[in-house]
């Protein structure tokens, strides 16, 4: 298998601007999405993910404009998510230049949405975003929605199998326990999901060191790793990540 493991920087977008902040606190303007995306492309990022965190519904249209501008100048896959709830939302983002769209809460509330959309678009452009927390009593992982505020009680393993069956092309798996902690990915969770589905799994939540990224791929069997702050704050460049992975035998695109 010669397909390279993907390194995916994630940008939080608020009303058309890149913002930095931790856990929705101290959010600061961090620049122009086009310029930042171009820099990531230049550094050999394999894909870029935009997460729209615009709070007010009316201002969400700004993301369409952002995607259009980035797609004019950046020629690597662009994934967009945040508040996507219908085929029309997906269609508008794809038309603007997104290659893939992530669906989260809306799919949990109405799982048929995945079937409905992928029947029209093909499975390659739908990424099922799954946010999970471990229930320490039952030792299982539960699916959360609405930015982690709502516990659905659904079992993450079953939901991952279900989104695959319904036609999702990929899973973006975020550990809410680890998100923002820089303590490393939840390897046990990753390995459980990635070994049991036949679609690619992107690891998210917890990246803090180069070892964390390596472990997500080698031990967690992730097909790609997504990280925000380590790239935002230039703790590591994409090249440093790829060089490190390469020395540990991971196939990366240089």
């Amino acid at each position, binding site marked *: *298998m*010669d*397909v*390279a*493991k*993907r390194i995916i920087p994630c940008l939080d977008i608020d009303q058309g601007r890149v913002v930095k902040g931790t856990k929705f606190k101290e959010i600061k303007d961090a620049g122009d999405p086009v310029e930042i995306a171009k820099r990531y*492309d230049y550094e*050999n990022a*394999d894909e870029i993910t935009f997460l729209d965190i615009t709070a007010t519904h009316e201002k969400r249209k700004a993301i369409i404009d952002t995607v259009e501008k980035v*797609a*004019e*100048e950046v*020629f*690597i*896959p662009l994934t967009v998510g945040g508040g996507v709830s219908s085929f029309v939302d997906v269609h508008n983002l*794809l*038309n*603007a*230049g*997104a*290659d893939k769209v992530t669906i989260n809460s809306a799919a949990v509330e109405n799982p048929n949405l995945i079937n409905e959309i992928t029947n029209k*678009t*093909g*499975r*390659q*452009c739908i990424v099922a975003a799954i946010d999970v927390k471990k229930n320490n009593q039952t030792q299982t992982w539960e699916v959360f929605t609405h930015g982690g505020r709502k516990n659905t009680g659904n079992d993450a393993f079953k939901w991952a199998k279900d989104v695959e069956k319904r036609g999702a*092309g*990929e899973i973006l798996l975020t550990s809410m326990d680890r998100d923002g902690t820089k303590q490393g990915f939840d390897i046990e969770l990753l390995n459980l999901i990635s070994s049991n589905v*036949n*679609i*690619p799994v992107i690891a998210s939540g917890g990246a803090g060191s180069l070892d964390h990224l390596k472990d997500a791929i080698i031990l967690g069997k992730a*097909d*790609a790793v997504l990280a925000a702050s380590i790239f935002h704050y230039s703790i590591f460049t994409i090249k440093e990540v790829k060089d490190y992975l390469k020395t540990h035998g991971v196939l990366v*695109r240089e």
Partner: protein
Amino acid sequence: MAEVVIIDYGMGNIHSVYKAVKNVLDKNSNVKVSTSFKDIKNSSHIILPGQGAVGSCMNNISQVFDLDEFKNHITKKPFLGICMGLQAVMSFSEEDEGVQCLDVITGKVTGFKSLGKNLKIPHMGWNKVEHTSNHNIWQDIENHSYFYFVHSYYVEPEDPKVVLGTTNYGKKFTSIIQKNSMIASQFHPEKSSKNGLQFLKNFLNWEGDIE
């Protein structure tokens, strides 16, 4: 100077292709998205993109065009098929319980699933393309360069002479073909960063080979 037409038949993200072509065009050239035979006739280069399932792809093409006339047009001048645009020019696809395709290149389209290995499907991400013959399309692109793929089926042309490049995923499969004025790739040049843009530039500089 090129007049490029990108054929829009309702299958996926043609905007990325449009934007990438626009990025590499010289100032005397033009690109448009169209479904009219008049535009196709007046063009110097044709691009057939496409994503999704082959059943709806062939269905959409046949709703927009008379298939014989369409085949006639796309074999007359430099043509680039991308992803589904490659699979559509083959004879037959095993996807969707079997679908007749355009049959410009003899051979079938088959699924990674039938390899029976523990492969993640779709084959999604960056993979290397090995050049199996010298061609102007590879100008300034190193052998074994990475391109972006996303697909669950791959082509098996009967004539090995049409193969321009191969890629490994579960097995070595044909990732790009060329015959006369037709080139078709399984990878997405429009999403393959620097190498992809160079590939598109090379295509626009190509006038087609005569057998």
